[in-house]
């Protein structure tokens, strides 16, 4: 655990990519193979199951540190992270431990069979032998909240450097539903072919935005200059659903979401068409709610994500279908190195013979002869219920991860409205102990009605100023939330707007964020609820 805790700390303390890779390599070279696999599992989001619920962990931590509950809660507000709060509050350790990461995780997994009294004793003993930094990482494992500020691609790069494999192969080999207990380091780095897990998905290819923000509009001339002739590109609508990879191999089907969650059971409507695909087929596409052949806004789909049981009612209200846009494996062969056009042809072939064309849809190509024409088409995005346009180079291979060059997204400009900040709450992580989470309101007559929360969009300098304002202009405190003197006006951007019965304002926004701080606007000039409702269309 010492090595793992040090790894975490060292990665935290540098922003330099080369330095991070070096730290990762040093770690790999210094720990046993089983620790390597546990580390890879954790760094790729495969957390051990939570064996003690968070409330008990908190309660025992409060007991051990002699802190009343309210003070614990306020400490958490200051620190912005539960595992870290506990690590800081516990008394200093009087023992130490040389157990490896593998041993600790095995102990955590064994807790399942123990009663609360045994769990408590184990936890208090464990805390007493871990130092501050070890405890922090340990608490993260224990509460299943392990996240790390280093991209998977850097971990893969370090691994590739020490194993002499190429990064793409390794990226592929650590995908899918393995756990460190059943996948060994030897299997991972063996010479030929990854172990034959039929469920294993391919790494997703992700697009870069062609314009960073809506303020940096790209003209058609600039597109010509950076992308070349329009004829070299294929364009599709950018759908706003759940990105998914669908696999049919050996008579079995698997649906993977972008977060590498196996979501096969969440979308029963897709099973018939997937089962009908030939073995050795992998499709990439977007899952969306559909009604009468038209995609429904994302919030309809949202109502069924996260539900454990899909009731008949939900399936009726939010039926899903797939808009497929790529084919990665055909007749059991990995075809990611074929060109975009070749893969498209194969995809069209598969789709043209499906008996479920309402469910297995294909992302239609937008016809255009010039960038000017495409720019015109882009203005129709909202009526197509799309977020904008995807551009794919006709000769593009299907690559690994987010890369510049062959796939670009060209999103439409967000809708926007000027609103007044009325509540503020402290943030988490690097925004801990700063007021960074705000609630915004618009005018309804002479009253301000809250309609959106937003967390991002301000610079660090602006956050510092707003934080200062909040601290000096608090009207009331409700737990962690402060009511703030209404005064500051912000332009809030969002991707879509829908009616909602759950919100006081009667509307719900998609992806609200702060576009800019309108220091030039007095709060009287903020927008009204009617302006907002007019956007409902």
């Amino acid at each position, binding site marked *: 655990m010492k090595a793992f805790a040090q790894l975490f700390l060292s990665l*935290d*303390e*540098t*922003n330099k990519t080369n330095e991070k890779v070096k730290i990762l390599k040093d770690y790999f070279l210094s720990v046993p193979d089983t620790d390597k696999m546990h580390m890879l599992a954790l760094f790729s989001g495969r957390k051990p199951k939570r064996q003690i619920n968070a409330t008990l962990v908190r309660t025992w931590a409060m007991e051990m*540190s002699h*802190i*009343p509950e*309210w*003070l614990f809660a*306020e*400490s958490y507000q*200051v*620190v*912005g*992270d539960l595992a*870290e*709060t506990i690590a*800081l*509050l516990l008394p200093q350790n009087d023992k130490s431990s040389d157990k490896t990461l593998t041993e600790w995780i095995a102990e955590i997994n064994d807790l399942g069979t123990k009663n609360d009294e045994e769990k408590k004793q184990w936890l208090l003993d464990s805390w007493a032998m871990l130092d501050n930094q070890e405890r*922090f990482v340990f608490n993260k494992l224990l509460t299943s909240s392990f996240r790390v*500020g280093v991209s998977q691609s850097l971990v893969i790069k370090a691994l590739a450097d020490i194993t002499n494999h190429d990064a793409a192969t390794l990226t592929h080999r650590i995908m899918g539903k393995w756990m460190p207990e059943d996948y060994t380091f030897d299997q991972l780095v063996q010479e030929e072919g990854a172990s034959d897990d039929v469920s294993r998905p391919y790494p997703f290819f992700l697009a870069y935005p062609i314009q960073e923000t809506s303020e940096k509009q790209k003209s058609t001339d600039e597109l010509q200059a950076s992308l070349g002739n329009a004829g070299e590109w294929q364009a599709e609508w950018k759908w706003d659903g759940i990105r998914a990879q669908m696999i049919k191999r050996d008579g079995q089907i698997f649906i993977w979401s972008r977060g590498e969650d196996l979501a096969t059971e969440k979308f029963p409507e897709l099973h018939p068409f997937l089962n009908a695909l030939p073995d050795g087929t992998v499709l990439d596409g977007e899952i969306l709610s559909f009604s009468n052949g038209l995609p429904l806004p994302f919030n309809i789909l949202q109502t069924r994500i996260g539900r454990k049981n899909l009731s008949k009612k939900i399936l009726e209200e939010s039926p899903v279908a797939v808009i497929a846009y790529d084919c990665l494996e055909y007749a059991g062969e990995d075809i990611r190195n074929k060109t975009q056009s070749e893969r498209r042809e194969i995809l069209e072939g598969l789709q043209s013979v499906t008996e479920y064309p309402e469910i297995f849809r294909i992302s239609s190509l937008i016809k255009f002869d010039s960038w000017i024409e495409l720019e015109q088409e882009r203005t129709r995005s909202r009526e197509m219920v799309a977020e904008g346009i995807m551009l794919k180079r006709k000769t593009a291979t299907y690559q690994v991860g987010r890369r510049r060059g062959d796939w670009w997204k060209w999103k439409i400009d967000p809708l926007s409205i000027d609103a007044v900040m009325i509540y503020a709450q402290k*943030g*988490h*992580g*690097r*925004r*801990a*102990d*700063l007021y960074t989470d705000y609630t915004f309101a618009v005018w309804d007559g002479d009253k301000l009605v809250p309609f959106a929360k937003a967390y991002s969009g301000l610079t*660090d300098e602006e956050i510092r100023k707003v934080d200062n304002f909040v601290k000096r202009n608090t009207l009331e*405190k409700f737990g962690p939330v402060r009511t703030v003197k209404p005064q500051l006006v912000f332009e809030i951007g969002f991707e879509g707007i829908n009616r909602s019965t759950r919100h006081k304002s009667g509307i719900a926004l998609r992806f609200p964020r702060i576009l800019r701080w309108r220091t030039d606007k007095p709060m009287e000039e903020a927008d009204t609820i009617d302006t907002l409702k007019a956007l409902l269309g």
Partner: protein
Amino acid sequence: MARKPLLEFTDSGIYCPQGKFYIDPWKPVDDAVITHAHSDHARFGSKRYLAHKLSEQVLLYRLGDIQLQTVEYGEKIMKNGVEISLYPAGHVIGSAQIRISYQDEIWVVSGDYKTEDDGISTPFEPVRCHHFISECTFGMPVYKWKPQKELFDDMNSWWCQNVKEGRASVVVGYSLGKAQRILQNLDLSIGKVYTHGVIENTNEALRRNGIILNPTTRITIDTPKEEVRKGIILAPPSSVGTPWMKKFNPYDFGYCSGWMSIRGAKKRRAADRGFVLSDHADWDGLISAIDATGCEKVYLTHGYTASFSRYLNEIGFDAHEVHTLYGDDEGEEEPIVLPEEVAINQTKEVAE
């Protein structure tokens, strides 16, 4: 008839109506008693100042030509029948708690303080009183400092490592207090200590005051970069990310502050190394200091006043929050710099 309290909290600062003087006022007044020379406590514009002897040169450097009377710790001064005496606060060199006594009532204003002996400031001394006005910048139980020896061992080995790998070491800390504390605890067998002009000006003021500091070299345009890279550079928070700092590339920068104990705050600073080093008392330090005064009432001026006073009340103190303008920066991160000070420092730095 209840007597008027000896000290009251007014729009201009903490005021003693009987003695007709203020303590650390934030508006210009006739008579100001100053706890220490940090800019949120010692402000420009008052007619007469009273402070500790070791603050003299720094105050004159920071506030310009002021009318300043200085005293030793423990020395008694009378103002309109009210007795004033200063006791060490251990915060920075020359920092003082102000003890006010009139008839049978004693008040103590802590200013900022820390309970650990840093080896350079006169160590904190608890003073018995009826009313204690305390800071609580780090008044949350998540703030617990390690002994400074551990910290400086870490810093010295970090410096060694940087020298070995050919990187400059830049240590960032507030120019009065933190900078000298670091300077006195560095292992000078590793290399020389270089200073940013703002810090060196403060060092010079302290040396004029008779304080013996380890040798330093002011960085000027002519200082050879190769030389500097083998040493360690002391820089103020305002220099982070400026071209001045960037010219030392490649460098590692360590940020020294109590806030560095929280991962989020550390990430915000984007420092290569966060050293948890504070000139304020930590949670345990605050509670033990308050307890040692034996006070009947404690007033909390800045920091986590709401939570800390609630906790103190729960464990049996009579604690109150008061609103002041101290610690605008919540302590030590970015102290308010008066426009005058910036102007003075900039012209000085350009001239050299």
